[in-house]
Each structure stands twice: as structure tokens, then as C-alpha cells.
């Protein structure tokens, strides 16, 4: 089952309120996305922990409804 960009963005922002989220539909098939997430909450966390915050915001949908979400996280510079 696929998810649309607006729904992914909504969930991430709900979980990480200050997040700046940019999502691309990589193949235009509604199933393969790339997300760039910037948030001050990532400060001091390693990449694994940063990605885990995003996965937590997605409430278990990553790996199920959402098959492919290439993730890149960063702290506002």
C-alpha cells in the first residue's frame, strides 16, 4: 500500500514539530520517495538516532505501508 507525499510530510511534522521536510517522489509511482528532514532536535544525535526519530514519527508505517523512503537528516545550519 502506498502513501502520498502530503501524508508522509504531515506525520513527520506531527512527530517533529520544527522539522523542515522536503520529499521527492523518485519514480513518480507513489511508492519510492526520498525525504530530506532538517530539525534542531537532531542536534547531538548520531545518524541512526536521527533516522529513528523520523521512523518513530512515521508510526510504524516505514517498512510496511511505506516501502521505500530514502532518508537524509540534518541539523539547521
Amino acid at each position: 500500500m502506498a502513501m502520498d507525499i502530503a501524508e508522509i510530510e504531515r506525520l513527520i511534522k506531527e512527530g517533529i514539530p520544527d522539522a523542515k521536510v522536503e520529499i521527492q517522489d523518485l519514480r513518480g509511482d507513489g511508492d519510492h520517495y526520498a525525504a530530506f528532514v532538517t530539525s534542531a532536535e537532531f542536534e547531538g544525535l548520531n545518524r541512526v538516532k536521527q533516522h529513528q526519530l523520523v521512523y518513530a514519527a512515521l508510526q510504524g508505517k516505514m517498512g510496511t505501508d511505506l516501502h521505500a523512503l530514502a532518508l537524509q537528516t540534518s541539523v539547521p545550519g
Partner: protein
Amino acid sequence: MNDQPVNERIESEINDQDVVLFMKGNPMFPQCGFSAATVQALSMAGVKFGSVDVLQDAELREGIKEFSSWPTIPQLYVKGEFVGGCDIVREMYETGELQEMLREKGVELQESPDE
């Protein structure tokens, strides 16, 4: 089938080998693009690694997600420590952090042919 609890099996996999990739398929025949991309990054980094095919074992496939608090496969462990999935491994390879981290942990790297 294996009677050993899945967490113990995961622990012995990640402790018995310096570098181990939980993946779909095997390095010669990856069964998923993300596993393939991760194998490629590791190969380019010149690291020898062991692999576990989660498609052979449904319990392990779910167990490793819980064990690592990570929702997707592949997953890379180095010296018993979770490093990340496909995106992180690829990003670390591209910035050179992967090679640096492996060397710091005393894992031997082979020079890649184009170096």
C-alpha cells in the same frame, strides 16, 4: 528450524563476525535494490563482510527489526554495533566516514582497484 531464541541468534551473528550485513538475498544475488546498494558500498570500501539472508528466516526478518529498533532491511553491524541501513551506509561510504570508522575499529580494508 532453530530453537534458540532469535535475539541470541542475532547476538551470536553480530559477535562472531566483525562486519555483518543482514540483507535480502546474498551478496552475489541480492533480492532487493537496497540490499544490493549496501553490498556495493561495502565492496567499494574494500571490506570483507559476512551476510545473513533474512528471506530464509521469517523470525529473524522480524527479530532483527526489533533488535535494532530499525524498521527496514538491510542492516549493517560492525563489531557488534548497529551502524545503519542503506541510506546511512551509502552516505558514510561517499563521505569516507565508513572507511574511517572501519579502520578505527581495526577492520582490515583492501585497497579498491581504482585507488
